């Protein structure tokens, strides 16, 4: 970590919100991308990231100086997304997000539909693993920190998730 980042971390740990904002603002985009890849809804993803940032701020005193902030924050985002999916309202009636409705046109809703459908059949850990690997391009070492495991185990999890994703997609492509 650079000296400027270390200084910001120290200031944020001392309660400086501007320092915290300076640290997490560049991480909003990867956090959002991770949340979208897990939740498949941009509005829910925005909410999940906002809640994650609040949790990160409240817990920042537990952040170890010298650690890398990105995997720490992405771990919180991943856990928050899991909580959202476990929430009591998640499986009930959903209303389309107007921002998403505006953003999505016919083509974009068709493109990737088979993959999204297949991902929905995976468990949270597998979805998280694939999002970190395919979407955020995290090295296995950093993935391991988010997943709370070793690099070897992260690599093995990625492989297993890919195998399962392929199988689901292959089954989807079979003629009925």
């Amino acid at each position, binding site marked *: 970590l650079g000296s400027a980042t270390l200084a910001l971390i120290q200031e944020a740990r001392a309660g400086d*919100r501007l320092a915290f904002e300076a640290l997490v603002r560049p991480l909003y985009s990867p956090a*959002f991308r991770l949340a979208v*890849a897990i939740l498949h809804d941009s509005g829910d993803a925005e909410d999940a990231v906002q809640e994650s940032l609040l949790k990160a701020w409240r817990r920042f005193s537990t952040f170890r100086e010298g650690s890398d902030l990105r995997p720490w924050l992405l771990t919180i985002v991943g856990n928050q997304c899991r909580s959202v999916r476990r929430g009591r309202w998640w499986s009930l009636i959903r209303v389309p997000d107007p*921002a998403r409705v505006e953003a999505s046109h016919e083509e974009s809703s068709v493109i990737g539909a088979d993959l999204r459908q297949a991902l929905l059949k995976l468990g949270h850990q597998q979805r998280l693993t694939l999002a970190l690997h395919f979407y955020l391009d995290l090295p296995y070492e950093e993935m391991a920190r988010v997943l709370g495991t070793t690099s070897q185990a992260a690599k093995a999890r990625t492989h297993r998730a890919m195998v399962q994703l392929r199988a689901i997609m292959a089954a989807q492509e079979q003629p009925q």
Partner: protein
Amino acid sequence: MSRLDEPELRRRYREAFDRVSPRDEAVERAMAAVAAAPETVRHPLLAPAAAVAIAMAVVVTMLLGGHNVRLTPSVIQPDGRVANPGVPTAGESQPPPPPVAWDERPGSLSRVTFDPVEGRIGLAGGGGVMVRSPDRGQSWTQVYAGPAVVRDLLWLDGHAVLAATSRGLMRSDDAGLTWTVIGSRTDLLRLDFLNLSVGYAVAGSSLASGQLVKTTDGGATYRPVDSPTRPVHWIQFVDERRGWLAGPAGIWTTGDGGSTWERQRSFEPGTFGDSWLAQIGMRDQLHGFAYYRSTATGMNQAAGVLFHTADGGKTWRLVSATSYPTTPLSGQAPNHSLPGSPTGELVVTGPASAKLLGWLPASDRTYIYSTTDGGGSWTSSQVTSLKGARGQLAWLPAGEWMAVTDFAGNAYIGVRGGGEPDFKLIQVGG
């Protein structure tokens, strides 16, 4: 079937999700949420000390005040001291209360309304939930659950109803059974419509910074319009031409659908500070109330000031005010007292009649207060089955209802028919 090797999977993955990017306003909203978050313990070594301080405060308060004493929210300061926003320390200015978003908590209820034609179909909403009653409030079923926070509900006729939510303006054309998002504004707080197409709303991050916006396409789009004051807290029309708006600076009326506004009452800057919200409740073109209430939290901080008019606002008579903290209108003493700790909006039930939901902190009891003489005198009825709660009342000649969330986070619909002594409480959600 195409070969799904790793590069192909990666390509498909990006194709599926790359089109969705974070909105600038969402980033700023998240940063603002962090900036507004209550102060917490910043240093791990201070946490145990703060916990001990809180525990001691709880024990001392219970010993001194018995079981009915409610602790106001405590804030742990960076040095580990515990500050109670409700009790200023001698020589210190009172710290601002932490932002309270009780009505946006998942499962909370804060709005309730009944169809204006038959008074049969009820809708209540709040934090990520909307429930509907087909039978004057006797039974309720969930019609919406999701991320949207319902901030206002407005019937356009007996079937069409709008919901201002944190995910856009939603509309139902089957009296609340199914909902469709028709507008992308996520900051609408209070709705009012002159007809099915033209309407106004107060928009903003909170009513305290409310801005007047107008739609001419039934709510699909809103645009800011000039308003005679800023912030605007409330707008209400009684027909297509006559309306009123209110804010901390005063009360205005229009007779041409909002094109021009005439000031009816002004308040000196600072009379109603940031914690005060203004509400207009007109019954018809002549009779109604203007109600200013403080949203500050803590004991003895909930306060209200009530005006009544019987001439369309040419004169707004200061009728009553709570006795604490102080009447904010210097030199003008109301003749009557408003009941203690009003916690919700005024519900106008007649030309000179209104109701208020209230909570007495000392006994932790919830009351419904009623006036029939323009706010001069009030009667109270206790909701015996409910401890302290906040929410909204709805009233029709057939009965009255309340959508409330208690301080433990449980949401209830209260139903009371004409003449019944107490509300029947139905717990929803949770």
